[in-house]
């Protein structure tokens, strides 16, 4: 099989070391600056909460914090980092509870609420140390190339040439557009979230694209590893603790995001709230944090900011295999049984050796990671041109400021802004599907799953997934028939601009892409997701097969109504 390592990669991405690009985020290094942000977050949050009864809010927050810490005690004992965080929280809560007994006045309660807000704001607020950043961007490429060559040089480079990361990490799409916009306004990058690997990669990819560092909403699980925690918190990452569900915390988090976006600090967060459990492209996004982009832009208009625009840039990550696939799909199936989707990232720590293992497998076996930068949007979901100007559906230029006008004035209208954000969320999900790069592994899994499904038309999802080993086989001829059919679906969709195809799929030769896909799927997992045995295609693990197959749902391939489950419980 021939893959040209250069096609598909954007020439704007340079893979050798290059100096850091400075940005607004460098100001986070200044303690006064950080304190002014915390102060702003507290002021905003107290404003948001001013209509509620402070006593009730405190009691509610205390209650939720107590439950959270009780749960945390049992699940996080393994990470000293998180344990010390929790010890700190416990002490703080004890203090507040003590004070609460003594207070009666409204002002006292407000003061306690302010302390609570401050406690959260301090926890959320990230730091940025330029020296640490310089160190990281020198070390990471060195580390990657060491790993890459250690893993693969013997096998694939017989002439002693060292392999480049470029051939493995494909950054494609609107890279130059993104670079240009980063100088015209503030970027909010919203990637899909498959794996804990994402967080490590994105930070590096941003540097590769010659962009200044981004502030980054990182789940608490990334702070469980002491090394990661140390570096992340000094590289602009702010802490997102999804276990904290109180209104006070949620408001503080949103206000932090608004505050830094408003100050022009480029930001990243995963709008789905956590890693996608089903393996599908995210179709239900969390709108709370997403709404902060709109809010920040509105306030910049109101303050007469010279570059008020915030650009929302979707990004789609694809790997031939996902190291947490088994636990993710199990989570999904468990919650699907209850018709609930529970993004709950806190409990799982990131084991360093697992990440190493992932990259080792990736580098030692000629697999590729695809990162596609999508077409930039404005905060209303309109496309944005090269100069940062919003384009209406018909391609004419429009001024997004007009969308903020109600009764002739630019102003905040919470109900309106919530609906705008819901539409933005819908648009991002649409773009995710359109920017998705279909890998051969996805299509192989899809083909086998669909072929099997046709053999057992009466079964619902849960019974289907429990097929016995002997039942999980499809004769090769039948499989290839299904593979051709599936290929036609994605090829047509690709021609219509509804998705993208990776290299082996471009050639269109069913033998080649099936072979490639089977191989990719077999690289990482102990169980064979798809295997060819005695003239039949089969799987060792139905759940994993479902997981990888799901990447091609949401396109209406199986039904007119894409994005949710059909009457038998299958994602369509």
């Amino acid at each position, binding site marked *: 099989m021939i893959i040209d390592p250069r096609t598909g990669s954007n020439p704007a991405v340079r893979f050798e070391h290059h100096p850091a690009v400075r940005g607004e985020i460098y100001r986070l290094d200044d303690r006064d600056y950080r304190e002014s942000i915390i102060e702003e977050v507290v002021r905003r949050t107290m404003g948001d909460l001013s209509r509620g009864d402070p006593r009730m809010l405190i009691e509610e927050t205390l209650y939720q914090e107590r439950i959270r810490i009780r749960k945390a005690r049992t699940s996080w004992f393994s990470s000293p980092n998180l344990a010390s965080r929790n010890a700190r929280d416990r002490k703080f809560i004890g203090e507040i509870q003590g004070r609460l007994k003594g207070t009666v006045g409204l002002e006292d309660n407000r003061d306690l609420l302010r302390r609570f807000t401050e406690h959260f704001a301090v926890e959320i607020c990230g730091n940025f140390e330029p020296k640490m950043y310089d160190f990281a961007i020198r070390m990471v490429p060195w580390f990657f190339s060491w790993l890459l060559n250690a893993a693969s040089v013997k096998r694939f480079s017989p002439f002693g040439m060292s392999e480049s990361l470029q051939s493995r990490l494909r950054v494609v799409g609107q890279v130059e557009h993104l670079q240009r916009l980063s100088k015209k306004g503030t970027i909010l990058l919203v990637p899909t979230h498959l794996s804990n690997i994402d967080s490590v990669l994105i930070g590096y990819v941003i540097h590769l694209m010659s962009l200044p560092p981004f502030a980054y909403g990182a789940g608490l699980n990334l702070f469980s590893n002491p090394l990661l925690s140390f570096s992340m918190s000094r590289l602009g990452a702010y802490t997102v603790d999804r276990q904290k569900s109180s209104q006070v915390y949620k408001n503080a988090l949103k206000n932090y995001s608004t505050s830094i976006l408003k100050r022009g600090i480029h930001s990243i967060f995963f709008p789905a709230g956590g890693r996608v459990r089903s393996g599908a492209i995210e179709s239900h996004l969390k709108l709370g944090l997403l709404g902060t982009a709109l809010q920040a832009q509105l306030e910049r208009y109101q303050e007469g900011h010279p570059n008020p625009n915030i650009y929302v840039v979707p990004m789609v990550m694809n790997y031939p295999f996902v190291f947490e696939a088994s636990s993710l799909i199990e989570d999904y199936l468990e919650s699907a049984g209850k018709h609930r989707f529970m993004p709950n990232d806190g409990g799982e720590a990131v084991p360093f050796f697992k990440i190493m293992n992932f990259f080792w497998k990736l580098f030692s076996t000629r697999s590729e990671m695809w990162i596609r930068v999508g077409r930039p949007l404005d905060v*209303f979901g*309109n496309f944005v041109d090269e100069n940062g100007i919003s384009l*209406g*559906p*018909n391609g*004419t230029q*429009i*001024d*997004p*400021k*007009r*969308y903020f*006008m*109600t*009764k*002739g*004035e630019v*102003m905040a*209208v919470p*109900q*309106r802004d919530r*609906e*705008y954000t*819901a*539409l933005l969320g819908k648009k991002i999900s649409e773009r995710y599907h359109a920017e998705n790069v279909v890998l051969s592994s996805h299509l192989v899994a899809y083909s086998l799953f669909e072929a099997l499904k046709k053999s057992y038309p009466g079964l619902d999802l849960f019974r289907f997934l429990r097929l016995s080993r002997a039942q999980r086989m499809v004769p090769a001829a039948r499989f290839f028939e299904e593979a051709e059919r599936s290929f036609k679906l994605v090829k047509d969709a690709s021609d219509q601009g509804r998705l993208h195809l990776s290299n082996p799929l471009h050639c269109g030769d069913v033998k080649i892409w099936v072979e490639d896909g089977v191989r990719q799927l077999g690289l990482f997992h102990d169980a064979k997701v798809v295997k060819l045995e005695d003239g039949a295609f089969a799987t060792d693990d139905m759940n994993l097969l479902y997981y990888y197959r799901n990447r091609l749902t949401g396109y209406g391939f199986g039904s*007119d109504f894409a994005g949710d489950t059909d009457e038998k419980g299958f994602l369509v």
Partner: protein
Amino acid sequence: MKKGFWSNSRVAVLGGGSFGTVLANLAARNCSEVTLYVRAEDQARAMNSTRMNPNYVKDLVLDSKIRAVSSFEKAFERGLDLVIFALPSHATRAQAKVVAPFFKGHEIVLHATKGIEEQSLKRISQVLEEEIPILRIGAISGPNLAGEIAKSEPAATVVASKFDDVLEAGEEIFTTERFRVYTTHDLVGVEWGGTLKNIFAIASGILESKGLGWNTKSLLLSRGLAEMVRFGVAMGATPETFLGLSGMGDLIATCSSSQSRNFRVGYHLAKGETLQDVIAELGQVAEGVRTTKIVYEFARSRGVEMPITESVYRILEGEWTAEQGVSHLMTRPQVEDRWV
């Protein structure tokens, strides 16, 4: 916030049919200026000089604030706050494409079209969202026979949108002492209500033509409503919406009025005329003929049970006579009197 913003606002109505003209007249009571866009220049000129639109609404005198124009440039030249699309469903997308460049982004958009886009099955608000650079879009729908509103008989309508901004604009612009405006966030339900009732208007014409009485007609209305709810819910609407003006209300008005085109299609079909003859006679295709086909096919593929719709469909297609259609419905298996 400016006080009395809407009373100083500028409104445009695109489409000078009967309902468009009536809406323009209502709006003129509550804003500073209304432009009424019509396609033909001589119609615009005639309306401006005679202050009448006799081809569509007899005896209605246009409010002095209304100015008829025949180009979008003129309609938008002074800037607009509210734009109302009052065009037939099949013309909406093409017109929206043409008018899209004139929008600035702050405008509120309402449409008064009772129908959906053929093939795509998209609601008119979805079509508009795809074509014009506006997100604050809503629909206005209800039992609003233009002739009666023109005579200032008491009536009411529903304005539907996800956006409160749109609901408020609708309330401010259309409320008069003889016309009430109700509001809802269930845009899906309101748009489908206005579309689906046309099917039953055809059925109602068929019953009338057969000389059937009120028991039969009420049976049609009640079970027709059940079909509307079933279909609407499958499309994402809230059942309660169909009990309101845009559902039940509009259904009763349309099915009882012998003037509606859909009603007349049913009436003539039941007399044994072919659909082609009836359409030729009416001069234009009634919205309900298209709707019936689309809805029937879609409902069947989605497993939504719509027996009355099926009968109307087969009568329109010439497969069944009116009698066969009725007896098909009367001999179905017994079911509970429920919606779902």
